Each structure stands twice: as C-alpha cells, then as structure tokens.
C-alpha cells in the first residue's frame, strides 16, 4: 500500500480509537484539506522550487503511538545539545512525545499531552489555537501533520515566570529499521509576562529514508518574551519540513534564529503573526550548504495590528550543487498603520553549480508604514581574499575566515551561550578553521 493510501486508512483508525472530541474535529477538518490538496507539487506556488512530493513514493512507517522499543539512553546521549544538564529536555521519538526520556526541571512549565490539554484548564487555548498555522499554510503537508496528530504536546509557561533553564527539544527520527515519517507536534503557550528560551534540533538515526514533518505553534501573550533557535544539521539523506508558527496575541517580543547546516531537502516555514499593537520580532537565518542539499526558508510576517516592528535577516552560503530558496512575505493589513518591517536576504555562491531563488513578497495595504526589503546573490569578496592572502594567509584559510566573518552577523544573535558555542564549532569544523 502506498504511503498516501496508508495515511487515509490510519486516519480512520485514529479517529475511532481516540476520545478527544475537540482535537478530533480539527483532525477531521485537516484530513478533508489533505484529501483536497494532497502533497504539494512544484505547481503549488509556495512549493515551486522544492520537490517534496517525490519523497512520498517511499513506503514510510508513521507511528501513531509509542511503538519504538529500540531507542535507549545511549541514543539520547548521542543527540543531546551542549548545556543539557541545565536544560529542560523534551524528546520526540518518531514524532511521538516521550515522557520517559524527557526531563522537566522548571516548575514554571506545564507539559501535557495535547489530548489532555484539550480537556482541562487549557481547553480554551487549545480550541482557539491548535491548527492556527493552517490559516497561513494551505497545503497538504501542514494538513497531514494535523490530521495525524497523535503524540503531540501542549506546553504552558506560567504567567509572570521566567524559565531560567532553557527548553531543548530533540526531534528524533529512528530510521535504523525502516523508512520513517515522523510528525512532531506541539502547541506552546507563553503566558503573560513570562519568558522562555527554546532550542530545537533534528536528528535521524540510521540510514533508512526519513521525513520529519514538524509543526510547532506558539502563542505569546502580553509582555512575554520568546527566544527560539532551530539547529538543523541532520544527515545528508534526511528530509525535513519544519514549521514554526508564532502568534503574538499581546504586546510582546520574539527572537528567532534558524541555522541550517545539512539535510537533503529542508523546508522551513517561519510565521509570525503580530496580532497586537507594539509587537516586536527579530528573525535571523543562516544556511550553509554543500553537496546536493536543498534548503528552503519561507517566512511570513503578518502585521495585523498597528505599530509593530519586525526585522529579518537571512544569509546563505551555497557550495557544490546545493540549491537554496528564500521567500519572505510581509503582510501589512489596512489597519496596521505605523508598521516598521525590514527584510534582507544575502547569498554567496561558491560554485558555478550552486543556485538560489530569492523572492521578497510584500503586500502593504496601509499607507503610513516603513517597509524595506533587499536581496543579493554574489560571490566571495575577491578583494578581501587578496587582502588576506597578501598578509601571508593561505587561500583556503583566507576563504574560511571570510565565510566565517560573513556568517557572524547571524551567529551573534544566538544568545543562548552553549548553543552559540556549539554552532560556532560546527561552522568552524565545516569551514575547516582550526
């Protein structure tokens, strides 16, 4: 049976066995959307350059409950991020949250299964915001994650609380004994005047085919602060669609950095909905690509309310036959006067066979706003290279120093120290800087 047919059958089973009426409705809506839209092909405007549909020719397993008995503590150690002893750790194995391997250190955090959250104290929030990303991502991939939501979690950061320990999220796909489609799902609610720092990573174990199709929705309340880092350095044969959908429902500040260093096809959706006055958002991205890797960053900043500020900078370095995509949408709604929205995408192509498609897309319906966008595609600065060489620095070292310097204005925005040091080291290793 093909993966697509299998999905439909498993969905029917899932609806029968689960007794979570609130979520069942959303899942049902999602499967209708999935059936209507299907897996996006390059004919879909938002997937023009990213061929995700061929991946679904593979027969995938997609666990809808805890069936993985292989994953052990040593495996966890192999995927942990530096500084984990001081962090809350949330572990997804094949898309299913594992309470056994997760560690909650902070009393400020409430971590529940989505199904449980949909019933109790947080029922209102779940009902209102679970599946919010579907309002912006009209494709079968997003619908697929929602339709098959099974092992997802709800995380609440209590009002007025600062989580001193960051939250590390490990999205593990265990492809040691087969081909796996994993679909981690989470809904975060950052309460009023609360603060949280999140760092996520994606790891595939084994050599089977894999696709990690993750959706994370984050609601940020008034006076709250969210820092979010996505570190993508999975193996060269792995695929990933990763959605971070942030809705700022009160005046708040968010800071998001996406670092992509490896993977076969990596598609990121970063959505920021500025749904309150005086919201502020900082979005940064760095993609450092080699081989045949394809990295696609789609960002949306939707200015729903007036007086919001957003700044976005994405930089790419593409070598070999790598291909990149940047699509940056900025919407300014008619009532969102005094919007300040800035966007920039810069690329360096190191090889004649590397390519990038970059497209800013601004839809401005208010008349008193400041918006700017810019994109560049160029080569390594030859003048700079000669300058360094003329000081005795070998050409390869000079190139590495220049590329590292180019990446630094993204890296300096990683404010979580162990993660900053970790990414610095990965990049130095990649550039072969001692």
């Amino acid at each position: 049976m093909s993966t697509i047919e299998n999905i439909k059958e498993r969905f029917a089973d899932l609806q029968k066995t689960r007794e979570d009426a609130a979520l069942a409705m959303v899942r049902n809506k999602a499967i209708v959307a999935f059936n209507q839209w299907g897996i996006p092909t390059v004919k879909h405007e938002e997937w023009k350059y990213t061929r995700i549909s061929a991946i679904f020719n593979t027969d995938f397993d997609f666990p809808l409950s805890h069936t993985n008995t292989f994953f052990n503590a040593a495996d966890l150690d192999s995927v942990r991020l530096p500084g984990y002893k001081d962090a809350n750790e949330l572990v997804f194995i094949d898309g299913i949250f594992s309470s056994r391997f997760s560690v909650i250190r902070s009393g400020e955090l409430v971590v529940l299964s989505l199904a449980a959250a949909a019933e109790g104290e947080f029922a209102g929030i779940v009902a209102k915001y679970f599946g919010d990303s579907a309002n912006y991502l009209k494709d079968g991939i997003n619908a697929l994650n929602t339709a098959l939501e099974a092992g997802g979690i709800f995380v609440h950061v209590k009002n007025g609380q600062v989580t001193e320990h960051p939250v590390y999220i490990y999205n593990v796909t265990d492809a040691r004994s087969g081909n796996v489609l994993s679909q981690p799902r989470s809904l975060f609610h950052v309460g009023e005047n609360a603060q949280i720092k999140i760092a996520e990573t994606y790891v595939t174990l084994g050599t089977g085919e894999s696709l990690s199709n993750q959706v994370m929705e984050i609601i940020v309340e008034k006076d709250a602060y969210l820092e979010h880092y996505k570190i993508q350095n999975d193996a060269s044969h792995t695929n990933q669609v990763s959605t971070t959908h942030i809705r700022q429902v009160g005046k708040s500040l968010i800071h998001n950095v996406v670092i992509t260093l490896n993977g076969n096809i990596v598609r990121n959706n970063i959505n920021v909905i500025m749904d309150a006055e005086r919201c502020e958002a900082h979005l940064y991205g760095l993609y450092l690509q080699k081989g045949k890797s394809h990295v696609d960053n789609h960002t949306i900043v939707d200015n729903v309310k007036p007086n919001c500020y957003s700044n976005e900078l994405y930089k790419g370095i593409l070598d070999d036959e790598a291909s990149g995509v940047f699509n940056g949408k900025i919407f300014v709604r008619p009532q969102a006067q005094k919007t300040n929205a800035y966007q920039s995408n810069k690329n360096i192509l190191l090889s004649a066979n590397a390519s990038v498609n970059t497209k800013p897309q601004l839809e401005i319906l208010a008349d008193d706003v400041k918006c700017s966008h810019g994109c560049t595609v160029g080569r390594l600065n030859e003048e700079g290279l000669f300058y360094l060489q003329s000081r005795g620095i070998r050409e390869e070292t000079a190139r590495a120093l220049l590329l590292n310097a180019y990446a630094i204005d993204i890296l300096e925005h990683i404010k979580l120290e162990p993660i900053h040091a970790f990414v610095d080291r990965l990049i130095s290793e990649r550039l072969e800087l001692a």
Partner: protein
Amino acid sequence: MLRIHNLHAEIEGKKILKGINLEIKPGEVHAIMGPNGSGKSTLASVLAGRKEYEVTEGTVEFMGKDLLEFSPEARAGEGLFLAFQYPIEIPGLSTINFIKTAVNEVRKYRGEGPLDAVRFLQMMKEKMALTEIDKALLSRSLNEGFSGGEKKRNEIFQMAMLQPKLAILDETDSGLDIDAIRIVANGVNKLRTKDNAVLAVTHYQRLLDYIIPDFVHVLYNGRIVKSGPKELALELEERGYDFIKNEISEAAEA
C-alpha cells in the same frame, strides 16, 4: 634584494607596464612618483601578486628567487609587504584574530613555530606603541568603519607585526591630513633597518618630507623615464609632471 627587469604587465588586454627596470638594495628607500594612470599602483599590485594583472614579459627577482612564481601568500612569507591604498573592510573578522592568523601563517612559512598567547600579546603591545595605534581599533572588525588615517595606521601596524624585508607603500598618503601622514611615516621610519627596504609609491612629494628616499623614480606611461636623488621629488612638486612629459616628447622628436 629586488631586481625588476624589463617588466611588462597588462590587465584585460590593456598594456600598463611597458618595460620597468629597477633594483633595490637592503637599507634603501626608493620612491616611485608619476601622474595618474602612469602605472604606479599596477606595479605595486603586480609585485604583491594580484591575479587580475598578467605579466607578459620580464622578470622579478626577490632575495634571489623568482617572485612571479609565488602566490600572494608565499610572497608575504618571503618577506614582501604591500600597504594598500584602499585597505579592505571585512565586517565580522576581528582585527586581532586576523593579525594572529597572519603572523602565525607567515611564521609557519618561514619554518618557525606559532607564537604562544603571551608572546603574541607582548609583540602586539610593542608594535602598537611603535605605530601609535589604539587598542580599541584592534578589537573591532578589520577596517570596518575605520577613518582613512586609522586604516593606514592599521596597515603600518600589520607591517610591524609581519616584519617584511621589503615594504611597498601604495599611495599611503592619499586622503590623509598632515598629522596622520606624520604618524604613518614615523611608524615606517621606526621599522627601518639596514636589512630591509621601502618602496614608496606616491603621487605627491609630501610623504617624502617624512620618509626620505635615497632614490626617486618617475614612472610615466608604463616606464621609468627619469631617476635621481631626493631632490628630483622637489623638482617634480615645483614644476609639475608636465615638464617630464615635455622632456619625453622633445626627446621623441629629436
């Protein structure tokens, strides 16, 4: 030390140098002057190994070796230094990190081990004082947002750190006020020994009030058309380059 013989060079098919002959011995200071477009900066660039320029004829011998065979970084290792007319700004690369890499790469080339942190800092401190450069500048990104004077001082500081045998100063005085010229020239003078040499490329005589040349050469239309003692620079300043041009056209007619 440096022996240039019948050097011809071109860029994108355009002939710029048309037979340069020049010899520099240890301890000497040579000045190359000339009007705009005469090939002064091209000569400096060709010596430093800028690859856009193609040498079509002639030889350059440096310390007994064929300089033109070397990559730019090997030339630096061999002891050649070019102070850029327009030093490049590199955001994100700290000046200290850059200097440290350069010093250790050059040491490696010369068969010396890397400097440890203590000795490196000692050396930096000493050379910073010598070239009157502010420590705050060195903790910033390389040349980023530096004033013209700060960039040139940084060039001389790098020269001090790399201890070249031959320093080529490409229009080091351009865009500098008199105080900045004095500081830069002082730095160069303090670094002079009987074993190293300076080749100063300049449009104006002003720099040569502070870096006193042993020989002045006039470059015109890709050739050295006149050489003389330091007084030649003063004469050029007074009479302008036209008198050279006139002399040449008279000679051509005769």
